[in-house]
């Protein structure tokens, strides 16, 4: 490039998927369209934040918040070594009984080494090339850089029966993970036990006994209420503008036109998409922290129940689920996630409680390099 066109760089690519089922046709040709929101939510295994937008509601009942926040504490362990996760007692007590989720924090996906344990019992190690070549456990090169092989993914099935002490496979993995003294991570963990009577904090007690510093973490709650606002109605043909408005609202953007003269002062300004509904107040509720797959399903069901209960008041209601940008896994534990220009993977569902129709929107990052036109 003699003279790069610095004004002509394209925006980083995203991929959006929309599923429109607003009229809730029961004779729909597409199968399972009713269960699509549920199955899409199930594909997220580590969720960073959940947020709700509920228009025309005076105040959110405490019971709704309580049902989300109960038993939702998670734990942070500093300096955890990967060898601890191969421990036989640990696997038998926590991974095989209930669902255990683990994710590395404070590390960047494209640069550092990461580990994660998915709810189905696989230990994923996302390693740099130098670390992989020292480690000695079989893995695959990352599918995002096939020519250079700068990162490798090692996947160990913790529920496999061959992972028992005395077995050659176990001994090899144990010695190889043990010799890597600098492979330590700060992780967040959460455990959903099978039986109700077992407290989820027993996993924290286990790591505490092994000698690691464990801190309890609570979900952060953000509540906001806006008064006398115009909101767009949920119709099939303007769903893109609807989601744009929703995004501006969620980040507390400036939606209010104080006086009509303000519009005349600017060449263009943002205005609420038509058709519009005038409401007295609109509630915004956000929980940020670490949610597991099981908890998210519980939250989704609670939200749906609440929405159907108030279906005469609510014109529409939304739930938005954001995944971790640095998580090494996306989409139902099958695919490798990567952060090139952005690490989004999120899902928004806008539901019409009156006829149980919905619009589902999934936003995933795209790994295509930006095209530079010369």
């Amino acid at each position, binding site marked *: 490039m003699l003279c790069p066109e610095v004004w002509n760089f394209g925006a980083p690519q995203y991929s959006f998927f929309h599923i429109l089922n607003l009229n809730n046709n029961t004779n729909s040709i597409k199968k399972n369209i009713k269960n699509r929101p549920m199955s899409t939510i199930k594909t997220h295994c580590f969720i960073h934040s959940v947020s709700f937008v509920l228009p025309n509601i005076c105040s959110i009942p405490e019971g709704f918040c309580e049902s989300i926040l109960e038993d939702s504490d998670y734990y942070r362990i500093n300096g955890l070594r990967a060898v601890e996760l191969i421990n036989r007692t640990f696997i038998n007590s926590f991974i095989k009984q209930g669902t255990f989720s683990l994710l590395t924090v404070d590390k960047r996906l494209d640069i550092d080494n990461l580990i994660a344990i998915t709810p189905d019992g696989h230990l994923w190690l996302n390693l740099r090339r130098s670390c992989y070549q020292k*480690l000695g456990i079989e893995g695959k090169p990352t599918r995002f850089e096939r020519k250079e092989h700068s990162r490798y993914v090692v996947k160990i099935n913790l529920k496999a029966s061959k992972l028992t002490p005395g077995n050659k496979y176990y001994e090899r993995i144990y010695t190889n993970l043990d010799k890597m003294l600098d492979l330590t991570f700060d992780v967040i963990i959460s455990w959903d036990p099978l039986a109700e009577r077992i407290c989820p904090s027993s996993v924290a007690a286990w790591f505490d006994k092994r000698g690691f510093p464990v801190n309890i973490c609570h979900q952060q709650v953000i509540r906001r209420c806006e008064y006398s606002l115009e909101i767009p109605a949920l119709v099939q043909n303007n769903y893109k503008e609807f989601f744009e408005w929703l995004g501006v609202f969620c980040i507390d953007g400036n939606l209010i036109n104080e006086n009509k003269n303000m519009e005349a002062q600017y060449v263009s300004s943002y205005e609420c998409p038509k058709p519009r509904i005038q409401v007295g107040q609109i509630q915004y509720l956000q929980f940020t922290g670490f949610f597991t797959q099981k908890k998210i399903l519980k939250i989704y069901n609670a939200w749906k129940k609440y929405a159907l209960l108030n279906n005469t008041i609510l014109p529409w209601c939304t739930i938005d689920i954001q995944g971790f940008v640095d998580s090494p896994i996306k989409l139902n534990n099958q695919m490798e996630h990567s952060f090139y220009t952005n690490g989004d993977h999120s899902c928004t569902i806008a539901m019409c409680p009156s006829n149980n129709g919905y619009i589902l929107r999934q936003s995933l990052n795209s790994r295509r390099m930006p095209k530079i036109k010369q």
Partner: protein
Amino acid sequence: MENSNDNICLPLPVTISNWFTTYKQREDYLVNFLKNILPSSDVKDIDEELRKLFPLTKRKGKVTNKPEKSSLMAMRKCIRLYLNQTKTYIQYKQMVPLNSLWLGYMHHMLGIKNFTSLPMNFTHSHWESINHRLIKADFHGAIITIVKSKCPSTIGIEGIIIQDTKNTFKVLGKDNVIRVIPKASCIFRIHLEHNVYFDVFGKELCIRPTERSVKKFKNFQIPDL
């Protein structure tokens, strides 16, 4: 019989011999014909044009017989070591004296009595000369470990080097299994006495040991597998 002999030795009748033409005669006839017909400017090119060849079918090259390798293979079979079989003819404990021989050789090669007095980093004055001697040394009988490799299953293999070829090491492990390890993809750790070891890139050693003693090594190498 004499009659038939006379018949054979007689010259052929004139009616038949008139039909004969030699190659030379045919050629001269053709050239004369062309000289008469063609314009004068083209006459001098006739010889050249007649020499041109037009291949109408595919030419098959000569079939060369490759020299048989049987003698070389037979020799290899005679000295072949049995690989990766449960019944091995060489045991690790039989090779341990070889290792001690090699350590004595290294003492002699490096010219020092105690390996712990080897220079640790490049600031030492003898660094260059020690490195030269190390790389020219023969490694048969050395205890070797693989620390880093492109192939993860070779990491952790430890043993005594039995054979050193251009691209591989044959290593005898403590479990009496002989493993062939390619040099190019690994970093080797060669153990000397008293917990002294040195790490070397395999790709620098991809030379036959006889040639390595005379080879000049480049000063600049990229330290990457």
